[in-house]
C-alpha cells in the first residue's frame, strides 16, 4: 500500500461518520433497486415457470351451453396448440366453522384426471375419482383458512340443490394465483372447488356440453384472430366473448403488482443517487479546500494533476462501493423476504429466486458514476491547482451584504441572524441543493404514504358513498322481478334493491370492450352512481351511463352514441346515447335504468341480483336463510370484506410505514448531518471565537444549526409539491382497468411527512450540536485558519 493509500484509509477513518451517512444514502438507493428488481424478476420467473409447467391457457371463453363437438372446431382454428372444454359455475358454500355463506367457484376436471390446460398442482390428496360425484378438490388458501384436510366435508348449493361434498384433495392452480371474492381479498370467503366433469354436467344439465373453454396458442401466435374465430364459433351458443390473459383476473392482478415493483425500481433509486452525488460533492470540496497545502506539496514533489485527481477519486469510489455493498446485501436479503411475502399473498406451489447479477453490475456502475459525477468539479479544481497557489492559504471568504445592504431592516436584525442569512446566500447552490435534498425526503414520504389515504378514500367512496349495500345476493339465472320481494322477506333484510346484469360488447369505431351492463332502478338508494365530484347522479331514464375509465378506453364522451352488442337472448346490436359519465375506482362499469334495460332485452321485468342492507342483530338468521335458498348463485358481503381488508392493510401498514420512514430519514439525516458537519468544519473557528466573546453554547449552535432549520423549513413546501407529483405519477402508473387509486392526499399525510423529516433533521443537528459544545476555545486562538 502506497503512502497516499494509507492517507486515504486514514481519511476514511477520520471522516467515518460522514462517509457512513453518504454510504447509507447510496445503500438505500441500491437496496431499493436490488430489492425491487430482484423481487420483480423472481416473481416474474416464478409465474412464467408455473404457467409453463402447469400449461396455463392463453385464451379463455365462456358460453351458455355449447355442444362438446365444438371443441374439435375450435381446435381446428389455425395457431392453436391445445383446447380444453370445461364447466364453470358459481355456488354458495355452507361451511360449518363459518356463520356467513362463502362463495364457491366450481370448475370441472376431466373424469380421467388428464388435465390438458390449467393443470392443478396437488398439495394434498388426489383428484376426484370418476363415479364419485361428491368428491372435490379445493384450493389451498381456502383449505388453510378453514383447516380443511382430505376427508373433511362441506355443503354447497349447486344449481338450487344443497349437496354434501367431500374434500379429497387440496391444490393450487395457475388460474387462481390470486382470487378475490368481493373486490377485496379474503381466503375464507372464496373457495375454488374442482369437481369431475360428469358430476358438474349432471348438476347443471350440461351433458355432452360445456360452458367454458381454454385455449393454448402456438408460440408466436397473436391472440386477436383466434379470439375472433372463437367468438364466431361460440356465438350461436351464448358465447360471452373470448379474452386473453390480460382480462384474466389472477393474471392481471399479478401483472399490476409486477408493474408496481418495476415503478419502484425506476423512481426511488435515482432520488437516492442524486442526493448521494450532492453529498459527495459537498464533502469532497471541503476536504480539498482543507488539503490545499498538501495538494500543493504533492505537486511540488512531482505528482501530476491526474495523480492528485485519482487519489481523491479513489476516496469517492471507496465510499460508493461501501454503499453498494451494504445496498446489495440488504437488497438481496430483503428482496428474498419480499418475494416470500408475495409468495404467501399470491399462491405459488414453488418460488424461484433470481439473483440478478446484472443488477449488481448496474448498481455498482450507477453508484460509482453518481459519486464520481458529484466529485468531478472539486477534483478537477484540485488537479488544476498550481503548486504555488495551493501552498498559500485560500483568500478569505467574500461575503455580500444581503440585498446589497439596501434594506434598512437588516440592521435591526441580530447579528447572529445576519450571519445565518449571509451564509445561506454566500453558497446559493449548496443551500439550494440542501433544501432540495430535504424536500426529496419529504416527497418520498408523501409520494408513498399517500397510497394509504388513496385506499381509504377508495373504500370510502366505493363502499360508503356508491355501493352502500351490505351484501349482494346474485341468482343462478335471471328471475322475474317478484324475486325482489322474496329477498325482502328474508330475516334481517332492511332494504332491498334489484339489479340486472347483461353481458355486452361496447364498440366505438375500432375500440371495443366486453363487460356487463348493470341495470339499476332510477331512484336507487343503495347502489348509487357518483360523478367525479362525488355528487350523486340520478340514473337517466334513457341512454347508457359509463364510468370514466370505460369512457377513456372507448374515447367517448357524454352525448355521443355508442354501439352495444347484447350478448344474451336476442343478441341484438343497438345504438345508445351516452347519457352520463360517472366515477368509479374499481373495474369498468356501464349502467342503464333497469326497466329500460329490460325493454332493450324485450323482456318483462327481470332481475339477476338484489342489493340489501342488513340488520346486524339478525345477521345469523339471514346467513342461514341464504345458505338454504335454492335460487341464490352467490353472495357478496361488502361490509365483511371491507373489515377484513382493513385488517390486512393494518398488518402491512406498519411495515410499509417503517420502510419509507427509514428511507426518508436516511436522506434527511444524510443531507443535514453532512451539511452541518461541513459547515462546522468551515465555521468552527468563528464559532469558537464567539464562545470566547461570551456567547453561550446555545447561541453559537443556533448560528450553525439555525441555517439548517431555515433550509429544512423552506424545503417542506417544495417537498409537498414534489410529493404530490410523485403521488400523481404513482396513481397514473398503477391505474389498471381493474383498479385505480384516487389522487387524494390528506393534510395529515403532509404533516406526518414533515414531522418525520423535521425529527430526522433535528436528530442530526443534535449530534452535530454535541460537537459544537465540545469546540476547543483555545485551539482556535493559536492557529491561523
Amino acid at each position, binding site marked *: 500500500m502506497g503512502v497516499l493509500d494509507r492517507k486515504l484509509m486514514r481519511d476514511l477513518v477520520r471522516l467515518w461518520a460522514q462517509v457512513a451517512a453518504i454510504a447509507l444514502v447510496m445503500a438505500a438507493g441500491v437496496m431499493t433497486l436490488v430489492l425491487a428488481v430482484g423481487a420483480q424478476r423472481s416473481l416474474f420467473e416464478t409465474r412464467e415457470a408455473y404457467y409453463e409447467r402447469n400449461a396455463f391457457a392463453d385464451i379463455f371463453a365462456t358460453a351458455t351451453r355449447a355442444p362438446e363437438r365444438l371443441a374439435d372446431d375450435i381446435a381446428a382454428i389455425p395457431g392453436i396448440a391445445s383446447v380444453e372444454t370445461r364447466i364453470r359455475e358459481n355456488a354458495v358454500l355452507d361451511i360449518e366453522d363459518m356463520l356467513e355463506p362463502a362463495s364457491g367457484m366450481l370448475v370441472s376436471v376431466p373424469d380421467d384426471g388428464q388435465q390438458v390446460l390449467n393443470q392443478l398442482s396437488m398439495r394434498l390428496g388426489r383428484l376426484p375419482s370418476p363415479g364419485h360425484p361428491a368428491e372435490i378438490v379445493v384450493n389451498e388458501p381456502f383449505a388453510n383458512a378453514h383447516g380443511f384436510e382430505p376427508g373433511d366435508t362441506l355443503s354447497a348449493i349447486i344449481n338450487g340443490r344443497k349437496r354434501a361434498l367431500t374434500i379429497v384433495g387440496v391444490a393450487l392452480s395457475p388460474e387462481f394465483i390470486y382470487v378475490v371474492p368481493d373486490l377485496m381479498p379474503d381466503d375464507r370467503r372464496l373457495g375454488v372447488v374442482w369437481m369431475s366433469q360428469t358430476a358438474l354436467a349432471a348438476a347443471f344439465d350440461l351433458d355432452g356440453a360445456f360452458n367454458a373453454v381454454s385455449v393454448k396458442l402456438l408460440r408466436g401466435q397473436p391472440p386477436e384472430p383466434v379470439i375472433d374465430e372463437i367468438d364466431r364459433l361460440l356465438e350461436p351458443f351464448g358465447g360471452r366473448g373470448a379474452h386473453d390473459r390480460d382480462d384474466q383476473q389472477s393474471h392481471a392482478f399479478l401483472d399490476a403488482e409486477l408493474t408496481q415493483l418495476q415503478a419502484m425500481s425506476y423512481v426511488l433509486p435515482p432520488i437516492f443517487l442524486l442526493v448521494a452525488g450532492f453529498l459527495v460533492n459537498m464533502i469532497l470540496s471541503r476536504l480539498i479546500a482543507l488539503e490545499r497545502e498538501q495538494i500543493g506539496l504533492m505537486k511540488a514533489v512531482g505528482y501530476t494533476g491526474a495523480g492528485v485527481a485519482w487519489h481523491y477519486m479513489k476516496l469517492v469510489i471507496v465510499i460508493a462501493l461501501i454503499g453498494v455493498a451494504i445496498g446489495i446485501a440488504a437488497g438481496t436479503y430483503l428482496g428474498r423476504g419480499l418475494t416470500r411475502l408475495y409468495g404467501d399473498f399470491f399462491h405459488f406451489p414453488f418460488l424461484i429466486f433470481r439473483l440478478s447479477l446484472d443488477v449488481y453490475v448496474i448498481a455498482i456502475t450507477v453508484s460509482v458514476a453518481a459519486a464520481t459525477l458529484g466529485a468531478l468539479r472539486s477534483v478537477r479544481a484540485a488537479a488544476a491547482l498550481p503548486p504555488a497557489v495551493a501552498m498559500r492559504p485560500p*483568500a*478569505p471568504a467574500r*461575503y455580500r451584504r444581503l440585498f446589497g445592504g439596501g434594506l434598512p431592516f437588516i440592521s435591526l436584525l441580530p447579528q447572529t441572524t*445576519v450571519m445565518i442569512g*449571509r451564509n445561506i446566500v454566500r453558497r446559493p447552490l449548496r443551500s439550494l441543493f440542501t433544501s432540495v435534498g430535504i424536500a426529496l425526503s419529504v416527497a418520498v414520504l408523501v409520494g408513498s404514504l399517500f397510497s394509504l389515504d388513496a385506499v381509504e378514500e377508495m373504500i370510502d367512496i366505493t363502499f360508503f358513498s356508491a355501493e352502500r349495500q351490505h351484501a349482494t345476493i346474485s341468482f343462478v339465472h335471471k328471475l322475474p322481478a317478484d324475486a325482489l320481494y322474496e329477498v325482502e322477506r328474508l330475516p334481517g333484510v332492511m332494504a332491498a334493491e334489484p339489479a340486472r346484469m347483461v353481458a355486452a360488447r361496447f364498440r366505438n369505431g375500432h375500440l371495443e370492450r366486453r363487460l356487463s351492463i348493470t341495470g339499476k332502478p332510477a331512484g336507487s338508494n343503495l347502489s348509487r352512481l357518483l360523478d367525479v365530484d362525488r355528487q350523486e347522479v340520478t340514473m337517466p331514464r334513457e341512454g347508457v351511463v359509463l364510468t370514466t375509465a370505460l369512457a377513456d378506453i372507448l374515447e367517448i364522451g357524454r352525448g355521443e352514441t355508442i354501439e352495444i352488442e347484447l350478448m344474451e337472448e336476442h343478441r341484438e346490436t343497438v345504438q345508445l346515447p351516452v347519457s352520463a359519465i360517472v366515477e368509479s375506482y374499481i373495474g369498468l362499469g356501464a349502467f342503464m335504468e333497469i326497466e329500460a334495460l329490460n325493454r332493450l332485452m324485450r323482456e318483462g321485468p327481470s332481475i339477476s341480483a338484489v342489493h340489501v342492507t342488513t340488520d346486524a342483530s339478525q345477521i345469523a338468521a339471514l346467513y342461514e336463510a341464504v345458505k338454504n335458498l335454492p335460487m341464490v348463485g352467490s353472495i357478496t358481503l361488502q361490509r365483511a370484506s371491507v373489515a377484513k381488508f382493513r385488517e390486512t392493510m393494518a398488518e402491512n401498514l406498519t411495515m410499509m410505514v417503517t420502510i419509507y420512514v427509514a428511507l426518508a430519514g436516511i436522506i434527511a439525516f444524510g443531507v443535514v448531518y453532512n451539511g452541518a458537519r461541513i459547515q462546522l468544519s468551515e465555521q468552527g473557528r468563528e464559532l469558537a471565537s*464567539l*464562545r470566547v466573546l461570551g456567547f453561550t453554547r446555545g447561541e453559537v449552535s443556533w448560528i450553525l444549526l439555525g441555517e439548517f432549520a431555515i433550509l429544512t423549513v423552506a424545503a417542506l413546501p417544495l417537498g409537498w409539491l414534489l410529493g404530490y407529483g410523485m403521488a400523481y405519477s404513482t396513481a397514473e402508473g398503477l391505474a389498471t382497468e381493474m383498479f385505480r387509486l384516487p389522487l387524494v392526499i390528506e393534510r395529515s399525510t403532509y404533516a406526518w411527512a414533515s414531522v418525520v423529516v423535521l425529527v430526522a433533521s433535528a436528530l442530526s443537528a443534535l449530534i452535530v450540536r454535541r460537537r459544537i459544545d465540545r469546540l476547543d476555545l483555545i485551539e482556535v*486562538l493559536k492557529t*491561523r485558519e
Partner: protein
Amino acid sequence: MNAGPIYTVEGVTKVYRTGEVEVRALRGVDIEIGAGEFIVLLGPSGSGKSTLVNILGGLDTATEGKVFFRDEEITGFGDRELTKYRRDHVGFVFQFYNLVPSLTARENVSLVTEIARDPMDPGEALEIAGLPRDRHDHFPAQLSGGEQQRVAIGRAIAKKPEVLLCDEPTGALDSKTGIRVLEALAQVNRDLGTTVLVITHNMAVGRMADRVIHFADGTVARIEENEKREAPASIAW
C-alpha cells in the same frame, strides 16, 4: 483608580495531559493585578503566558490554585458561569483577529454589543480603536491586518469590559501598524480605566506598562515596576 486588586492569583498550576505525556504549563503562580493597571507579560515561548491569560479570561481552568476576580473565585465556575463572566467582564484581543468574515466591521462589534449589559455605540468603539469611519461597513476580507486588529479591539472594548486581555496583539503586524494598535490599547486604559494585560515577546513594549511581569518555566520570574510609562510612539523595534 486603584480600588483594590481586580485579579488575585494564588498558587495556580496547570497540567496538560495528552495521552502519556504530561506538560506542566504553570508551576505555581501568585500575583495580584490592580484595577486600572496596564500590565505587560514578557517571557520566552512556552513559558505559560497564554495559559495564565486564558485562565484569567475564563477560557481555561486551573489544575490547582485559586483565581479571584474581585471577590469572586472564578476557578470554581462551571461552563455557564464562565460564559457569563466572559460576556460581562472580559474583552479579548488575539494575534489572529478572529473576526467573523460574514459580518462587516460594525456588525462584528454589534455582535458583542447586542449581548452586553451597558455597551457603547459600535461606531464609537471602532473610533476609539482607531478604525477610520469609511471602513466601518467593510467586511474583514476588505481590511488590512492592522485594520482587522483594530476591529478586534473595538469589539473587545465595546461592552466596556473591566479587563482587556491581549495575547500577542501585534504578533502578526509590522511595527508601524503594531504601534498604532498599542496606542489604541493605551488610550482605552487611560480613557476608560480598563485594566489591560498584554502578552508580548517584545521587551520594548514593557516600557509603556505600569508593571512588567517576567515569565519563565511556568512561573513568575520577576516583576518590574516602571516609574514612568512611555508613549507607544516612542517605542522602537
